[in-house]
């Protein structure tokens, strides 16, 4: 981490990232080390961070400054790191840890899955989604995928207006639910937002 703090992360054009992006990336290095213990060498960590930085920069160039940069950055880093882990060279590193070390690590590693917080968060998230009908969820997903209201209407044998109404209704339901939970401070949903693509609005 000290190493990454001392070097400048570069984009594909060889230029440093904007300071706010750089700051967030450097801040997340320790979390990356913690959650991806196989990625320990500085070169790999730097590669992951630079690739994540490039994706973030590309996203901001298309859609403007990200409102939740920290959350978006972590999701991006995690995605890049996961891809990295699938590479043969990294798999080799994963398999070269000695049995004693592996046993010790396994014995002390905290579970990253299904902690009480994870379970609580997922229950809340599922509860939020359950407030939408299946049709509303699918419509939202299709919109997220970039289909226009016209395409959805044609598929469902509806009018464009009724699709838009359904989408608005879903939006209102979810927003009310989210705001309610946020106001109650009872929904620790990590802001791991990914900026959606900009689907054609129909």
């Amino acid at each position, binding site marked *: 981490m000290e190493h990454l703090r001392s070097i400048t992360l570069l984009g594909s054009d060889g230029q440093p990232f904007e300071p706010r992006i750089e700051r967030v990336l450097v801040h997340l290095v320790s979390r990356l080390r913690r959650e991806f213990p196989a990625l320990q060498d500085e070169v790999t960590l730097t590669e992951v961070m630079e690739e994540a930085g490039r994706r973030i920069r590309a996203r901001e160039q*298309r859609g403007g400054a990200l409102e939740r940069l920290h959350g978006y950055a972590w999701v991006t880093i995690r995605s890049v790191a996961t891809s990295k882990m699938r590479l043969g060279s990294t798999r080799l590193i994963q398999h070269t840890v000695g049995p004693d070390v592996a046993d010790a690590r396994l014995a002390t590693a905290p579970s990253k899955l299904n902690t009480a917080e994870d379970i609580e968060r997922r229950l809340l*998230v599922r509860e939020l989604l359950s407030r939408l009908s299946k049709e509303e969820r699918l419509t939202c997903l299709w919109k997220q995928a970039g289909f226009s209201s016209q*395409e959805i209407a044609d598929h469902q044998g509806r009018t464009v207006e009724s699709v838009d109404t359904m989408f608005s209704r879903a939006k209102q339901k979810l927003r009310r639910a989210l705001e309610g939970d946020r106001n109650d401070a009872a929904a620790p949903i990590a802001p791991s937002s990914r900026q959606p693509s900009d689907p054609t609005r129909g």
Partner: protein
Amino acid sequence: MADHRSGDSDRKFRQDLDELLSDANPNPDRIGCLSQASLKALADRRQPLGDPGYEHLLQCSACYREFRRLQDDRDNEQS
């Protein structure tokens, strides 16, 4: 101005939806998961709306995240 606000509201909603679908359904055993090719076809909108793959995305956060990543990659390539 109203259109601008509406656009912001849509974007915000899509972000919220992304957060929810990325997290809601861990599916650790990857039951019924889609192949990379199927996810790519969905991300590229080459599959019809009635494709059952879309329903799977509502039930599997891992596939949903990968689907969104492929969309990002496609957008990056196009930009």
